[in-house]
């Protein structure tokens, strides 16, 4: 089975801290994604990557950056955490097959910024 592993299930950080959310997939998928999920807003795409060292902004990239140095790992970075970044963060990966690009999700990382 494809596995997407998010390093932290729950995190509590303080305003202004730098936060790293790590995501690793083990199926050699080309595409990787970071979404955040908030009540009433559904899933919103922050960034995605379709290859090593490649990244594209999603719908809400402000306040975030990403890193993909290896194919299997996609990191989300909050340079200076703020309280409005308190959310559930979901990482996903998919193969690059246009008619079959099914996403496999990690279990999520719930971040609280105090």
């Amino acid at each position, binding site marked *: 089975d494809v596995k*997407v592993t998010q390093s932290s299930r729950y995190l509590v950080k303080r305003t202004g801290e730098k936060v790293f959310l790590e995501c690793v997939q083990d199926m050699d998928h*080309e*595409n990787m*994604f970071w*979404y955040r999920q908030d009540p*009433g*807003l*559904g*899933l*919103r*795409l922050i960034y*995605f990557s*379709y290859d090593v060292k490649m990244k*594209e902004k*999603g*719908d809400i990239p402000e306040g975030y950056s990403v890193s993909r140095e290896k194919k299997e790992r996609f990191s989300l970075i909050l340079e200076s955490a703020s309280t409005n970044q308190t959310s559930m963060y*979901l990482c*996903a990966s*998919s193969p*690059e097959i*246009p*008619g*079959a*690009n*099914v*996403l*496999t*999700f*990690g*279990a*999520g990382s*719930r971040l609280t910024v105090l």
Partner: protein
Amino acid sequence: SQQGEEDPQALSIQEGENATMNCSYKTSINNLQWYRQNSGRGLVHLILIRSNEREKHSGRLRVTLDTSKKSSSLLITASRAADTASYFCALRGAGNTGKLIFGQGTTLQVKP
């Protein structure tokens, strides 16, 4: 935005009844997918329907796609309490980008 809009936002039914959820969108798509999320967990893929397909089945799930109306529906037949979850549609646009854009979801409660 090409986000899908889902309807209804919430649905409560009795076990054994059918549940229907709808997704409408505004742009051309390559495919449309449905995902399920149990409370506090990641999403799980249910079914994918391509833009040139009209209907697909998977077990108790039936998905239809009407590209002329830019809408899709997910039908869960003979629902069970274990079907209680949130259901999301996700769109892959017709361009080359690989990203999927999700709707806001429908919360389904199936009462035993």
